[in-house]
């Protein structure tokens, strides 16, 4: 822990920025200065680009950066998950080699977890890693890999032992994406966007020193990644743009970085149902006069208000340190599904036959049509509704678990071909 007072921090950050912050630097140059100055990730240990700050101390730095329009380190896409996982579970050598270029934005990362055969059942993965002549040889297929097509590295889970129960035979690797054994193909969704990739690994190679957490400990490492993912609200988020009226080369490059990073997520607001468009459209079309439609709109507003208030109440309880189990995450996720579906239903009622249209000439420049063919994703991506219901019933309501068919050696567990 760092003992600096909040006032001292304020003074020191501002002094450092007066000295070093120059919006006319290139994005990479600026970030090198920022990272080496220790102000990029002040909550990290001082040994690795940080200052051992508490969250409160770090918040002071973030506020000042924000006020002065200072461009932060690279955080888009899965790179932040990679960084936090390596910081938490990697060895010093790995931290030294990988963290700095993540922060400066030189290296882009992707996450290689899900497989076609193991979606809800992530630990049922069957990508194979074999140690041959001191190197890990990887064979298998991953899917839903955002940003994999421009990633330099990937965080990878693969199976190294098939004779132990499924969670025990998994190892965690850092894999170099630019090698002959790795092929990345875009994966198009039913709404026409291609936000994800499939990654095929055929005798791909990972150096022995890029195993994280030791052989067979991959599940624990992956859980660290997943808990960060949950905390950050999924990697599938929009990262906003440059706020305010700032000018300079660094902003131009930063804006470009964000645009590329946000590209896969342009339809994400639509998969949530675009509740914001409901009332304006209902008023504009006159559908708000229709009694049956009014009932459905009211239901939607009720759900949305309920979800947002329940989530706020849960957050307040969490902050107050209550011991009461607050299932905010899973309930919120399930709520988002229910809300999105009802919103799509209401949009359909409002559009009536116009819901047959799509594209830029259709309602709200095509956004409504995109809602109608994107909402199915909200109840699947990032854990299906079914998985959320399992979590809520088991962890919150403490109902008994399902009987398991997947104990014993992984080799013997029935799975998809």
């Amino acid at each position, binding site marked *: 822990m760092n003992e600096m007072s909040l006032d001292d921090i304020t003074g020191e950050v501002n002094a450092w920025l007066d000295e070093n912050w120059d919006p006319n630097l290139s994005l990479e140059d600026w970030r090198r200065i920022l990272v080496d100055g220790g102000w990029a990730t002040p909550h990290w240990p001082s040994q690795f680009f940080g200052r051992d700050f508490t969250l409160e101390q770090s918040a002071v730095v973030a506020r000042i950066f924000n006020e002065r329009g200072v461009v932060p380190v690279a955080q888009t896409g899965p790179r932040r998950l990679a960084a936090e996982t390596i910081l938490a579970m990697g060895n010093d050598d790995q931290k030294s080699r990988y963290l700095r270029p993540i922060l400066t934005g030189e290296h882009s990362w992707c996450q290689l977890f899900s497989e076609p055969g193991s979606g809800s059942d992530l630990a049922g993965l069957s990508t194979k890693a074999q140690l041959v002549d001191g190197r890990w040889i990887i064979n298998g297929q991953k899917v839903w890999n955002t940003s994999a097509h421009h990633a330099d590295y990937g965080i990878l889970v693969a199976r190294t032992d098939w004779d132990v129960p499924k969670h025990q035979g998994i190892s965690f690797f850092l894999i170099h994406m630019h090698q002959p054994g790795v092929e990345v193909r875009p994966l198009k969704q039913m709404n026409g966007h291609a936000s994800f990739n499939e990654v095929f690994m055929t005798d791909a190679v990972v150096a022995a020193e890029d195993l994280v957490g030791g052989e067979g400990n991959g599940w624990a490492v992956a859980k660290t990644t997943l808990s960060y993912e949950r905390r950050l609200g999924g990697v599938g988020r929009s990262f906003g743009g440059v706020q305010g009226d700032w000018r300079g080369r660094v902003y131009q490059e930063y804006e470009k970085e964000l645009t590329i990073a946000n590209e896969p997520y342009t339809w994400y607001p639509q998969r949530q149902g675009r509740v914001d468009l409901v009332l304006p459209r209902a008023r504009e079309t006159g559908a708000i006069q229709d009694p049956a439609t009014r009932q459905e709109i009211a239901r939607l507003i009720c759900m949305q208000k309920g979800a947002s208030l329940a989530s706020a109440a849960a957050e307040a309880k969490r902050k107050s340190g209550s011991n009461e189990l607050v299932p905010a995450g899973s309930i919120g996720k399930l709520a988002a599904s229910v809300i999105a579906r009802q919103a799509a239903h209401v949009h359909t009622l409002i559009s009536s036959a116009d819901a047959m249209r799509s594209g830029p000439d259709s309602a709200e420049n095509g956004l409504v049509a995109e809602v109608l063919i994107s909402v199915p994703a909200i109840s699947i991506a990032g854990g299906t509704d079914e998985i959320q219901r399992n979590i809520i019933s088991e962890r919150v*309501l403490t*109902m008994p678990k399902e009987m398991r068919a997947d104990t014993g050696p992984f080799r013997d567990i029935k799975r998809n071909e």
Partner: protein
Amino acid sequence: MQTEYTEDQEAFREVVSRFLSDKSQPAMVRELMESEEGFDSQVWQQLCSEVGLSATHFPEAYGGFGFGPVELGIIAEEMGRYIYCGPFFASCVMAGYALLASASEEAKASLLPEIATGSTIATLVLDNLNSPALVGESLTAREGRLSGNAPLVVDAQNASTLIVIAGEASGLGLYCLATDATGVQIAAVEALDSTRKLASVSFANADVRKIGDISRNTLEQIWDYLCVALAHEMIGGAQHLLESTVDYTKVRYQFGRPIGSFQSLKHRCADLLMEVEFAKAVTHHAAFCLAAGDGEPYVASMAKAMAADTYMKAAKEAIQMRGGIGFTWEEDTHLWYKRAKSSEVFLGTPAMHRERMMSLMEETA
């Protein structure tokens, strides 16, 4: 505006809950619901004078504690959880709010302190329980005389004082008279939910004292206050049902497994939990809004609609998941089921309240 309960309020809930868990156990509820008056006057006196619940939301000037809809909501929620049988809702909530909103200073000063101590039991006579817009059509007052019929009045049999909202030549007025006044006829009505006593009240040219004017707008506000209190009752009941049902699924075995391990029950319980959490959050929010005089204009209807739907869903699942046992008289679930069904339509159906939500929203849009 308040967004969560204070520690004091949480402590208050504890007090209320402890009192009711002791004085309103299912066996007592069953005994009272079979009786004519439907409540235990000794418990009522303790509730009013010892615990002081009846005076919670009245201003101190009228013998109250000066709290508001939030604290009243806490009481109502716990009463719903334990299905407290007594004239609290009729006297303190219904009559109390009508007086607070519309009675003359003199009437307030004379009536509220009596209601606050519980020595006077009052009720509010509304000739229509479906919508504030329909009130005042059947009961009319002309030159100090009241005529007409209110088919459903809560706890009228137990009241000594009737507070009446009646139509006038133009507009509405608030009136007061004794239940034993000439021209007043009170007849018990058989209730689906026998834990809340109902009667019809009819007036044949009864001599009546006018104690205030009520605008349509004020009546809508009173209705809001009543709905929010009722919504609290309902979410208290819904929570009880959710908890007791989940508990049951953990101990009931079929096919060698606790039935709570069957995925379809687990998923339905998860959905129910979500709905209960939403209805609870909105209902609490509605009380915070009323207390602050702020928030969405339609928040009371929102709370009533959500609490009603959630309570009914919880009630249906509570019986279904208990199987045949849940349908027996001996098992307690039906007490809450009937309360849920009755509350669903009391002060307006969910559909009416959704329509009212939309109207209020569009009026202010």
